[in-house]
């Protein structure tokens, strides 16, 4: 089932949660709605589920106008961050719920329900837990039950609201991979809401980045990471260094230092910023034309993060650079050492075209 949003807006009192959203989710894709808290991503998901009704615009399911369909009529599976398992029912009864509440005509026979529930429990690898209560299971197990329960009614669309947000990082990683495999096997359309850029990049086919009720950019994960169209997306998709730059005659300058060509189209000369990811800063011998001092070293597994105070940079805001563990061990960088800097890649944005977001 494909989902389209056409000019969808929703307001809560004075607060515009989402404004004029257009979004296409083709059949069979796994899309991530990514953004900081309060950006409207959950509202968007609830609008698709039918848990909220848009003030303006249309929600289309397979090209049909579903804007006023009720939650039940949309036949979507919805998974909450806090699992929302029925605590007074066993795992089996939870998964069977959607089948048992069907009208007499549609309801499968008791035997059919039993076999379906058990096969779903096997699918989420929790067949042994059928007579347990939710309180007796771990967070990861509960979320798998919530998924099984949502899938019991054969939804065409699976909507997941920060499904792994409350789990520790190892379990989260495992469940992400498992969800991706499940999606590939069962071919439904899925939308996952997350504030974790790594989760979005790892699991989704397409990522839509939201900010303040607007979609900033939509694209495949690699493209969004490499070619962000706004400073917001650039910042949100990973670590960045921010440097004030001055664009003059097609060249960008940090203080007196010429760092390279920049597009002429940028307005507000002198008011621009360059965003550089840590791995895009190259560290060389101090002879290079941009000297700096290494002020901190942090080894993080396979990578090493170096903090460098560059000349022409205020001392309290050192640049972050990343190099591989191998290189770090070969060259033996140490705190206080003089190094030379070169920017391999960077992107210049107008300062203040988009409001800065406090949450990042």
């Amino acid at each position, binding site marked *: 089932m494909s989902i389209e949003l056409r000019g969808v807006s929703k307001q809560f009192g004075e607060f515009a949660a989402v404004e004029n959203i257009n979004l296409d989710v083709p059949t069979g894709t796994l899309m991530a709605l990514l953004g900081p808290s309060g950006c409207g991503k959950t509202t968007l998901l609830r609008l698709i*589920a*039918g*848990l909220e009704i848009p003030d303006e615009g249309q929600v289309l399911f397979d090209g049909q106008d579903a804007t006023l369909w*009720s*939650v*039940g009529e*949309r*036949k*979507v*599976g*919805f998974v*909450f961050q*806090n699992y*929302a398992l*029925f*605590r*007074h*029912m066993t795992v089996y*009864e939870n998964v069977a*719920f*959607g089948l*048992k*509440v*069907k009208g007499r005509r549609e309801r499968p026979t*008791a035997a059919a329900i039993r076999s379906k529930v058990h096969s779903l429990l096997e699918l989420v690898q929790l067949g042994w837990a059928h007579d*347990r*209560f*939710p*309180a*007796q299971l771990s967070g990861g197990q509960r979320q798998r039950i919530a998924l099984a*329960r*949502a899938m*019991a*009614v054969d939804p065409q669309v699976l909507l997941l609201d920060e499904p792994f947000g409350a789990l520790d990082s190892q379990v989260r990683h495992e469940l992400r991979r498992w969800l991706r495999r499940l999606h590939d096997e069962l071919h439904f359309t899925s939308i996952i809401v997350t504030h974790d850029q790594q989760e979005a990049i790892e699991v989704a086919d397409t990522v839509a980045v939201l900010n303040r009720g607007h979609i900033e950019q939509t694209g495949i994960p690699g493209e969004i990471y490499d070619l962000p169209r706004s400073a917001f997306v650039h910042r949100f998709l990973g670590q960045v260094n921010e440097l004030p730059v001055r664009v003059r005659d097609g060249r960008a300058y940090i203080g007196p230092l010429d760092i390279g060509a920049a597009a002429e189209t940028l307005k507000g000369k002198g008011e621009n910023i360059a965003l550089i990811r840590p791995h895009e800063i190259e560290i060389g011998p101090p002879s290079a034309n941009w000297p700096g001092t290494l002020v901190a070293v942090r080894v993080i597994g396979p990578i090493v993060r170096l903090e460098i105070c560059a000349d022409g940079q205020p001392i309290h805001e050192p640049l972050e650079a990343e190099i591989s563990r191998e290189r770090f061990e070969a060259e033996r960088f140490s705190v206080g050492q003089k190094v030379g800097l070169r920017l391999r890649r960077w992107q210049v944005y107008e300062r203040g075209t988009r409001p800065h977001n406090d949450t990042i």
Partner: protein
Amino acid sequence: MRRRLLIGIALMFMTLFLAIPLLTVFAQALARGAAAYLAAITEPAALSAIKLTLTVAAISVPVNLVFGVAAAWAIAKFNFRGKSTLITLIDLPFAISPVIAGLMFILLFGTNGWFGGFLRTHHIHVVFAVPGIVLATIFVTFPFIARELIPVMQSQGNDDEETALSLGATGWQTFWRVTLPNIRWGLLYGVLLCNARAMGEFGAVSVVSGHVRGLTNTMPLHVEILYNDYNYTAAFAVASLLALLALLTLAGKSFLEWRQPELRRTGHARQRPKGGKR
């Protein structure tokens, strides 16, 4: 040492102000022997008072059950204009004296009250009759169930209900199979408290009842009349019955409290929702 002192003070206070008075009631009631006790609680006026008290509780508790659940549901799950006013209104019966509550009903339904003329022409008796007693009791006991449920429902949020709806359940199915099981302990607790107050209410009922022996006397009113007649044994005999009902209610409440944490910990539900096994 300090802890012992504190516990000692608390126990002494409880004994002095709660246990001893309660024991006195039973001691006085049985002061002239079991036969006198039995006679006092089986005489026609006493029986009629017991019957009326039970009738009033049997009407007002279910009514408040329905309205309490509805009010708590509306307040906890929806946002609407006038919500804070509604919350304040629910507390009104707690805030004003029961006597004033009774007077309000006199002013509304009494002979010279707002609806007095209408009621007289249609020969409907509200004040100084059973309907007035029921109305006053419903008013006074309204907050118990709603107050008990609002925090429970607010803390549970809407996720369970929204999940049930997304799984295709109807509104009724969602209420019976998801919402009600989730709030049942709070609900039972509220019903017990509501019931205790409905049977024990004196002030509001006293104003609207008119004290017609054998007709509009509830147990608390009957106790007062006997007491004013210097008929102490009979007064305390009926009072002991009321106290017994109160004790039973409290016992029920502590039983629930004792069961509940255990239920939470092991997750064993005693009652399965209807249709859970079909």
